[in-house]
């Protein structure tokens, strides 16, 4: 049975190709949606986020595949296979180029309708087997939607079969050498594509999943590889829809030069299918999800009558010729115009077209996203960040003299200061008799009111332009003198000019900071290792014990 082995190998190859295309599609869709919404889409993994899809695949494979305690285990486990297998089976008979088909079935078109009907059972199994009411609701919605939209789908396909006089996909494709069926069946294409999107649960027909209402519907309880199979089925379905649309309506592999250059047919096919996929993405980017009653009403009151009219008119043309067709078409149009007057009066279609125009315009615009750590948006000139200390460049010391006025005026009490006699005052270098020694600002509580800046008599404070205020632990919320100086200086204050506390001998007024070992010992007493400050600010610790000593509750030396 070499034939059977060939088919199995071909199927395996197709499976791999489909999985590859699906991975590419997820990336393409996220990029497309991102740009429509003026975002960049995935950017982090690899150049322009190219490795996002492989990363997602790895994540899904590694993720634990959970079975809920309340689930019907066998049904729950089987459901993903029942959903995926029929979709994959469709690839058996889809011709991607003139002879590039695993098996050209005489009943190809009917096969395309019959096999996916099993998928619904899979979704119902998932909905029931999960033991979850959202999943059950989603399963019920799937059943209702898929049964309803199968009817217009079949009607559109029957019309194609009537024109082509065949059910074989290859034969149908070959008949479009001169004229693609989109010109003969524009209405049929509309009906087919709409119904097919509904069958594939794609937006705007994705009420079966409806994340915002039923949190994913039948797939809510699935994780890891099981969920990936549903995902694979959905995207494989998109490939099927685009391929079948290309074959039935867009002339398949026929295009300029496709008969002369070998391989060009496959290119034309891929290009047309890609265009259909892009259109599907575009619809998703544009339209909101329909409500379930709107969805049903649209199918039964709009799509099915239109599909029937299309079928009958095509039949009239084929049997009675163009003259009878024209008469019937005119009659049908008048009838439709009268029957749908409320719709025309409310101009429903106009809104749809306008929204499509809007999304097509936004995709051309430049995304406003910037690559944050690398790029930064300039803040407004009136922007106020954390209050920061200013540096006196002439003398080479902070402007602050630790007068404590800001600390007293602070409405939320987040500033603590302490100073010491300024050594530079003795040598006459500086006019400041005292100089700031400690300046602690708890920015987790700061309200950026700017009162400290207003009240400072020495103009030693200014509102910085910093907006990156985050910390990994509560004590890191307290910024110290050198960190606050750094905010305005843009560099670390020179350590030499600001002698660190331990290099100071305890001065005569006893105001100087306590030696470092005491603070460290105090920290050790509470069983905590002394923590290094977030940014280098001299040999200081943010330990509260040290700060308490500044406030008068002196640690015994």
């Amino acid at each position, binding site marked *: 049975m070499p034939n059977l082995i060939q088919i199995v190998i071909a199927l395996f190859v197709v499976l791999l190709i489909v999985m590859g295309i699906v991975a590419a599609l997820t990336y393409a869709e996220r990029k497309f949606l991102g740009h429509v919404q003026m975002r960049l889409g995935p950017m982090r993994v690899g150049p322009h986020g190219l490795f996002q899809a492989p990363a997602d695949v790895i994540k899904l494979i590694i993720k634990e595949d959970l079975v809920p305690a309340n689930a*019907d285990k066998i*049904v729950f486990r089987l459901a993903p296979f029942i959903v995926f297998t029929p979709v994959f089976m469709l690839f058996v008979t889809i011709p991607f180029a003139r002879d590039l088909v695993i098996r050209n079935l005489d009943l190809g078109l009917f096969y395309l309708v019959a096999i996916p*009907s099993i998928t619904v*059972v899979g979704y*119902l199994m998932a909905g029931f087997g999960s033991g979850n009411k959202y999943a059950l609701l989603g399963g*019920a919605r799937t*059943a209702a939607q898929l*049964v309803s939209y*199968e009817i217009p789908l079949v009607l559109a396909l029957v019309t194609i079969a009537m024109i082509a006089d065949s059910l074989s996909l290859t034969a149908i494709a070959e008949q479009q050498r001169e004229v693609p069926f989109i010109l003969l069946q524009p209405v049929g294409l509309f009906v087919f594509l709409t119904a097919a999107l509904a069958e594939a649960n794609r937006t705007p027909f994705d009420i079966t999943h409806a994340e915002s209402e039923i949190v994913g519907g039948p797939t809510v309880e699935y994780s890891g590889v099981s969920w990936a199979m549903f995902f694979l089925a959905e995207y494989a379905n998109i490939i099927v829809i685009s391929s079948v649309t290309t074959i039935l309506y867009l002339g398949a592999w026929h295009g300029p030069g496709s008969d002369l250059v070998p391989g060009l047919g496959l290119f034309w096919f891929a290009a047309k299918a890609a265009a259909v996929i892009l259109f599907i993405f575009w619809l998703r980017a544009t339209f909101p999800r329909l409500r379930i009653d709107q969805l049903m009403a649209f199918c039964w009151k709009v799509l099915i009558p239109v599909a029937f009219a299309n079928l009958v008119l095509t039949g009239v043309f084929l049997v009675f010729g163009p003259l009878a067709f024209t008469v019937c078409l005119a009659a049908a149009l008048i009838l439709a115009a009268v029957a749908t007057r409320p719709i025309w009066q409310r101009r429903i279609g106009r809104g749809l077209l306008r929204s499509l125009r809007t999304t097509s315009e936004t995709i051309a615009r430049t995304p406003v996203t910037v690559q944050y750590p690398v790029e930064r948006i300039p803040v407004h000139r009136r922007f106020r960040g954390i209050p920061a200390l200013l540096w006196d460049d002439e003398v080479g010391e902070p402007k602050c003299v630790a007068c404590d006025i800001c600390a007293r005026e602070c409405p939320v009490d987040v500033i603590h200061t302490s100073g010491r006699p300024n050594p530079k005052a003795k040598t006459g270098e500086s006019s400041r008799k005292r100089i700031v020694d400690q300046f602690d600002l708890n920015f987790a509580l700061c309200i950026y009111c700017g009162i400290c800046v207003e009240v400072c008599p020495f103009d030693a404070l200014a509102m910085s332009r910093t907006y990156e205020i985050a910390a990994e632990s509560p004590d890191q919320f307290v910024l110290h003198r050198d960190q606050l100086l750094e905010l305005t200086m843009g560099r670390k204050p020179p350590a030499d000019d600001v002698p660190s506390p331990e290099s100071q001998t305890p001065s005569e007024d006893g105001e100087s900071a306590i030696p470092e070992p005491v603070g460290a010992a105090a920290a050790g007493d509470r069983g905590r290792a002394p923590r290094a400050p977030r940014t280098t600010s001299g040999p200081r610790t943010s330990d509260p014990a040290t700060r308490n000593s500044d406030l008068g509750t002196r640690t015994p030396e």
Partner: protein
Amino acid sequence: MTLSPQLVLFIVFSIVAIYAAFGVVTTENVVHSALSLVVAVSAVAGIFFVLYADFLGLVQILIYGGAVAMLVLFALMLTRGGGGLANLDNRQKPWALVVAGVTLAVILFVAISAAWPAQQVLQRVSIQQLGRSLFLQWAVPFELVSLVLLVALIGAIVIARQEE
């Protein structure tokens, strides 16, 4: 009789169909019962494929495997609170027995009275031949069946609308 691939497939599909059919009537969970029905009718579709009745097989999958099974499941899930152990017996048991017995008798009668083997060589019937015989030779029965279905459809709508 040699063990051809067709015969192997036929046996496999038959075993699956019979096993699943037993599952339909023996399991206590109505949803499992309905799912077994899907397996049974799909296996029968497989038998059709083995016997070169492609169209019939696809119809079997489309109508029984997909639509009918789905409607059964749909109704069960919505009306029985999502399945579980339900009381499957009711007063119609004797009538069900009668119907099942008569059906079995008919099938057995046909099977025994038929001239076996029916055909030495299986022939693939093209969809064109099938269409011609359906719409020319058997047009009246076909239209009658359509009419019956239409009446059933309208009847269902009327019954559903009565509550409003």
